[in-house]
């Protein structure tokens, strides 16, 4: 148990280290000079540009030797200083990200959790129920096979353009300023529904299929047969099978996170939803290296934390890890 955790922790730290290093490479290894890009955007007057150039080269520490830049980057991270944005010059990257993150939490957390719960319940329910298995599950396959952005585009087109029921873009109506008021919350939810649904539906399909396939194995497992032989009611048998089948689904969640992030990105892009994903696209298009760097750093951290939580959860629900075998199966 203890050693299991220490091992896990070690892996996480190492991963973080490597990921951050790659992240650090982004602005440095990009051809072209970030400062030049910045000045080009700022469209300053000739002389002004000249002065600014030397100023920002210093400000970004781009004149230091690489190893120094690397160290100072780590130092900066722990002081929450991710440099200055080019796209949103002169705002500090950290501030920009902090403003975007709530939108992600509010969009991702519900869609991931709800789809996971609902999908698993549904999959377990559909399995071995002939008519469901043959009618509804095919839809599941299609859903999970649907590219996130396409479903988003489709929903947007049908429910916002053809039948203008929901708004096509943004996280709230332009006419409303953020505030903790019912008008705003209602408006927020109204804008939230389309992006949420497109994320939810795709993931839901995946989980449903996964669970359906898992539980079929479990229902054929010896312990299930034994229960039947002892005349245990269908309910109990299925409950046990479900409990066992849910384990791989939990690990699945961890494995999926990366893809889900990408899915969220494109969904936000389609709906101009001001989360990290939308930020990243803007940053990519405008070559705002420091913003890109910051966004990825946050994604790395989010994924790592999520993974860690899932690991803990896994230990709680799967005795086989707690007992003896010290994480071999994690």
């Amino acid at each position, binding site marked *: 148990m203890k050693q299991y955790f220490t091992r896990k922790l070690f892996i996480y730290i190492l991963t973080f280290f490597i990921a951050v290093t790659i992240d650090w490479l982004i602005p440095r290894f990009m051809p072209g000079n970030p400062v030049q890009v910045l000045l080009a955007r700022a469209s300053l007057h000739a002389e002004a540009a000249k002065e*600014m150039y030397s100023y920002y080269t210093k400000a970004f520490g781009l004149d230091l030797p690489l190893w120094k830049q690397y160290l100072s980057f780590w130092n900066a991270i722990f002081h929450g200083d991710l440099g200055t944005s080019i796209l949103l010059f002169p705002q500090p990257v950290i501030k*920009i990200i902090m403003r975007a993150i709530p939108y992600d939490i509010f969009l991702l957390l519900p869609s991931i959790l709800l789809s996971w719960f609902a999908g698993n319940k549904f999959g377990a329910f559909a399995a071995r129920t002939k008519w469901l298995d043959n009618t509804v599950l095919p839809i599941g396959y299609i859903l999970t096979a649907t590219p996130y952005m396409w479903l988003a585009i489709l929903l947007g087109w049908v429910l916002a353009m053809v039948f203008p029921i929901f708004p096509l873009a943004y996280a709230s109506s332009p006419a409303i300023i953020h505030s903790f008021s019912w008008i705003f919350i209602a408006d927020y939810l109204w804008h939230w529904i389309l992006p949420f649904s497109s994320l939810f539906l795709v993931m839901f399909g995946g989980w449903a299929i996964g669970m359906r396939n898992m539980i079929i194995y479990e229902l054929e497992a010896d312990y299930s047969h034994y229960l039947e032989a002892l005349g245990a009611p269908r309910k109990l048998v299925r409950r046990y099978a479900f409990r066992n089948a849910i384990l791989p689904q939990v690990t699945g969640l961890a494995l999926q996170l990366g893809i889900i992030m990408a899915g969220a990105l494109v969904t936000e892009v389609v709906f101009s939803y001001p989360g990290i994903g939308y930020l990243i696209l803007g940053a990519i298009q405008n*070559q705002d290296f420091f913003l890109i760097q910051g966004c990825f750093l946050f994604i790395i951290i989010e994924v790592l934390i999520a993974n860690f939580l899932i690991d803990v959860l896994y230990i709680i629900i799967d005795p086989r890890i707690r007992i003896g075998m010290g994480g071999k199966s994690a």
Partner: protein
Amino acid sequence: MFKKIILLVLLIVFLFSGMAFAQVYERSETLYTSGTQWGPPSSWNPYNTGGYAMGTFGLCYESLFLYDPLTNEYIPWLAESGEWISSKVYELKIRKDVKWNDGTMFTAKDVKFTFDIAKTAAIGLSPIWNFLGSVDKVDDYTVQLKFNDPLYQELGWYIYNNPIIPEHIWASKSTKDVTSGIGENPVGTGAYMFEASDQSKMVWKKNPNWWANSALGLDPKPKYIIDLVNSSNNVALGQVIMGQYDLNNNFLPGIASIVDGGYGISTYFPGPPYMIAGNTAWLLLNLTKKPMDDVAFRQAVAHAIDVDQIVNVVYGKIVSKADPSGLLPIWDQYIDKELVDQLGFSYNPEKAKAILAGAGYKDVDSDGFVEAPDGSKIALSVVVPFGWSDWMESIKVVSRGCQAVGINLTPEYPDYPQYLDSKLNATFDMMICNDQQMSSTPWTYYDWMFQNPIADIATMQNGNYSRYDNEEAFALADELDKVKVGDIEGMKAVISKLEKIELTDLPLIPLWYNGMWSQTSNAVWTNWPSSAEDSNHYLAATWRGYWNMTGILMLCDLEPAK
């Protein structure tokens, strides 16, 4: 339990997003704009030229004069008048009874301060000190600019392009804060005041006691102006169609069909080219490389490109073909017509082939592409930044045209920094570029075109990326700068010389006029500027530097839809 989760998340969300009051803006008194901000509003520093929030300069901070490019007239603004009392002294009469929106009076000392600060801090105005000797405050409403060697055209540009700032606020700022501070809570003299801003928008509120109400009887109609951060084309276009933007300044593909389609959307011109020409898209040729250094080759390229296809197919007729001189329609009077007729070029593949052949470019190895006179192979690329969709399409047309006449030219789409890098360090072969916006004088164009010295181009970032080296041209550009504003004939004389050089040497090839993209919806606001006789001819543009080109007047002419 899901409910719990959601509530929890809700809580988190509002912990993050500040703003404790519920504010809903009445649609009928709000003007929705978009097309300027590529990310959340992040700066209200009018000297952050490329990045300040929409309207910071123009709605909040104001300039001494406005300039109307369509009539080529200066409109006195914070200055009541500006006159040359001697060949080297320019006297500004400052308007009285103007208040900063924090209540302080606006006086000559603010103007002096603005000029002086440009000496210490590197801002757009700084270069004026290359020829400005001193700024003297005669009295509270009179300022004299004493020049060593006045550059009239350049000055003419500064007086409407430079925001005047309040001394009582800015005097305490560090140089760094002046040049690149965020500049929150801007205090200006303008018609609008900072109201609020968040991830997706900037909100300006009407300034009830704006000086122009009484002084000029001007009254901007919208109580609020909300500028939305740019979104993807399909969202923007969708918002326009649904009348959720009143004024949009994005490049919207297919807008032509929308305008014709009767969605209540209008543009300045009812038909092609729909938009006022805002700047010229050039094809830059890198003169430091073979064979671009050969004028014959450049001529051939110029004749090989089917600009009409770019205009009609790529842009769907919302742009127009550029004059060979590259001068914008607003500068039409400066174009030396017969010179253009005799030296100009047009799409003519046969001629292009002939020129190539005449200059000794022959297809030796018969691979369908010509080789250089010295027999060396020619394989060139034309670049635009990846993701700039209309340009990406355009250079396909360019390269097809060149290939058709035997020039092996292929389109490439590097990411922006690579594009910029090759531009600044002259590593490209050919590229599209449109760095110069419309302005009060063609001098800005030629200054950009013949920027020197060539050594500094990478850091100056102000043109001549073709590396055209011609002392005569440089001299002429400076000479043009010295011509008095309004001396049309004098300007024409110099400009036609410049045109001659330009057309004979073709350091760059003007292709088309990019529009000043502007689509307006009549759903909530009407009486937008248009080419029609009975309506106003201001610029409906929210772009940085356009409010002071009559954009502000456009606001005053708006009328709520019935």
